[in-house]
């Protein structure tokens, strides 16, 4: 099955977020017929993971880099995110209480909730050389 892979490496800064999203959108253009919502779901999950790496993973360290690899096949859209910061395993948070009042709302935890809601599989590995988060969206 034909498969496209595209890789980009950028500094772990918030300015890289739109460039990572653009990279994924460009990779998706190689495959006709990918539905817009599936692409959005992956953009959202990747954006949240990269934001966590930038703001928490590299906290207190010299800014490093993030390597993003996109694989598009007929069955799945797979994004592998590698970084060299602190280990930061994504753990599924509780579902937000949709009935909570405005005063009770907490904005924390929504990012990881979106990651787990938007893709089908999340694999995380950490080793002394770095961390890898693999997000799989079945098509």
């Amino acid at each position, binding site marked *: 099955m034909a498969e496209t892979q595209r890789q980009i490496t950028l500094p772990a800064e*918030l*300015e890289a*977020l*739109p460039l990572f*999203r653009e990279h994924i959108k460009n990779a998706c253009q190689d495959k006709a017929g990918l539905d*817009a*919502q599936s692409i*959005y779901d992956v*953009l*959202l999950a990747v*954006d*949240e993971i990269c*934001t966590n790496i*930038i*703001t928490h993973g590299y906290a207190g360290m010299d800014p490093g880099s993030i390597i993003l690899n996109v694989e598009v096949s007929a069955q799945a859209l797979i994004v592998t995110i590698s970084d060299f910061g602190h280990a930061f395993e994504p753990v599924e948070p509780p579902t*937000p*209480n*949709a*009935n*909570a*009042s*405005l005063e009770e*709302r907490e*904005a924390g935890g*929504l*990012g990881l*909730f*979106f990651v787990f*809601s938007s893709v089908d599989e999340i694999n995380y590995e950490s080793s002394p050389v770095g961390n890898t988060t693999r997000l799989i969206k079945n098509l």
Partner: protein
Amino acid sequence: MEISITKGTVDIISVNGSVDALTSPELVKVLNDHIHNGHPNIVVDFEKVEFMSSAGLRAILASVKEARTAGGDFRLAAPQPSIEKVLKMAGFHNIVKIYPTVSEAIASFG
């Protein structure tokens, strides 16, 4: 992200582009400055927002609280389907009034 303000009976704040961790601080600042300048009732036009992450939801939450504390309200207009899905996933449709068009959002203020 670009933000423009249209003055009227209710001011419309139009957002164009992406609301993410990079851009959301600017959005919060513009919205809250506007609210504190004597305009607690605002319609935020999201028609041209193509991407929003949880950082954008934090911005909305902060400004809705700010507007209501100032005696007004923040009402959202014309979000694209993917953005509306994000709002619903987080249960924000229960705390923020969302309208399909800007004119309906303005009319809702009566």
